[in-house]
């Protein structure tokens, strides 16, 4: 292993806390009509440890606590244990650079656990930088092997299991990317994901109601789905103190969802390493071919959902970020500690079917 300088031996440690809350009236648990009130508290720690001048290890550990009024409607016991849940996540990664070839390889492994879902994942990546470091391209492959702990609505527990083909879900996610510096003020990034999902792709505790039939069934969706999102990012330094960040995405999948997303962020750089960044996001999508609102499905269809996340919709997201990016040395008795960045972020989300949400996040990164 090559010796590291004092600066290169520094460990990067980051912490993020986020709060999300939403309200709406199209809960899929109650068949597409009902409260979607939900609150989520998310806390994560990220560590990056350089092993030598070419190798590093990283870890991300997180826990989220969420409470959901709609999940409380899975059975008739209101405010029962189904109202709250905790999800724990851990991810590990390893990177090795090959300086002579300007390439970097990465390996990943991770997992998450919550009451009704267990996930394990692994993968790897490769990227190459050009000699002048103006062009970067590569790919990442992540594989998720997940298992549902199947919970169905209380009144359907004698009949629903025949509609559940498996408790497994597998996802293969291949991300390809290409970045290019265009000029002294401009750079672009193109990304294409190819995603294949197989297994139980519906949610077992979602109800679906049919025309002229009072008794619901559980949501039933195909066991195969292929997705292709293609995105383009363009960052432009319009002025010494003003930046434009644009991101657009076109999405298509085999459930017939076509979507377009555009994000515009406009950071303004202030003295002392501060910046403020208002941003706006617009999203529009067509409905999945298996979607219909409550009690509008006809009996006899092979697949059906009343989950409004898969409906035809558009959404607007307005937000504001305050960021600090200049190293701030802190004097401690034992060791050097410096704050490398922190960010405060707040967002308001409005969806065309009436769902609204608010999010606030705080992150801080230090070097020790």
């Amino acid at each position, binding site marked *: 292993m090559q010796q590291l300088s004092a600066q290169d031996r520094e460990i990067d440690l980051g912490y993020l806390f986020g709060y999300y809350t939403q309200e709406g009236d199209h809960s899929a648990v109650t068949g597409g009509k009902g409260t979607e009130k939900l609150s989520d508290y998310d806390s994560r720690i990220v560590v990056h440890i350089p092993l030598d001048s070419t190798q590093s290890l990283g870890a991300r550990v997180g826990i989220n606590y969420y409470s959901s009024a709609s999940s409380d409607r899975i059975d008739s016991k209101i405010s029962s244990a189904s109202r709250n849940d905790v999800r724990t996540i851990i991810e590990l990664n390893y990177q090795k650079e090959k300086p002579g070839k300007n390439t970097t390889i990465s390996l990943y492994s991770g997992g998450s656990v919550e009451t009704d879902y267990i996930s394990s994942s692994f993968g790897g990546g490769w990227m190459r930088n050009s000699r002048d470091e103006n062009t970067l391209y590569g790919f990442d492959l*992540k594989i998720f092997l997940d298992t549902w702990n199947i919970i169905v609505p209380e009144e359907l527990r004698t009949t629903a299991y025949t509609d559940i083909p498996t408790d497994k879900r*597998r996802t293969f996610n291949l991300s390809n990317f290409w970045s290019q510096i265009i000029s002294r003020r401009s750079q672009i990034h193109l990304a294409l994901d190819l995603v294949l999902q197989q297994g139980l792709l519906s949610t077992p505790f979602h109800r679906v109601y049919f025309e002229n039939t009072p008794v619901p069934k559980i949501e039933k969706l195909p066991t195969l789905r292929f997705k292709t999102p293609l995105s383009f990012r363009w960052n432009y330094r319009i002025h010494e103190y003003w930046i434009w960040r644009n991101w657009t995405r076109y999405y298509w999948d085999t459930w017939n969802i076509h979507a377009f997303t555009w994000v515009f962020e406009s950071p303004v750089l202030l003295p002392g390493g501060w910046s403020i960044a208002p941003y706006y996001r617009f999203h529009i999508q067509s409905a999945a071919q298996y979607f219909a609102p409550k009690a509008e499905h006809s009996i006899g269809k092979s697949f059906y959902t009343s989950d409004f996340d898969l409906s035809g919709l558009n959404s607007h997201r307005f937000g504001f970020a305050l960021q600090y990016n200049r190293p701030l040395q802190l004097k401690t008795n034992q060791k050097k500690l410096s704050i490398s960045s922190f960010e405060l972020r707040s967002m308001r989300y409005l969806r065309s079917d009436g769902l609204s949400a608010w999010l606030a996040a705080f992150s801080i990164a230090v070097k020790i």
Partner: protein
Amino acid sequence: MGKKVKVCLFILTIFCLFLPSCRSIKGMEKYYLSEPKMSLQDTDATLFENNAAIYREGASGANGNKAGGGCGCH
């Protein structure tokens, strides 16, 4: 020509419009690009916010985050 093919061709055309302006930018000329807000990656707080969209919309991916798997979401 199918709608999907037309959209892909449109995106590639916009992309190719940028190519003629590419030239090799040397290290000392990257002053404006080195600003953290010029990064092509999203911050952790932005990725967290994007995750909220993954749970509320049918489309995801191509943004440095996963496009499926790891959760009971779409």
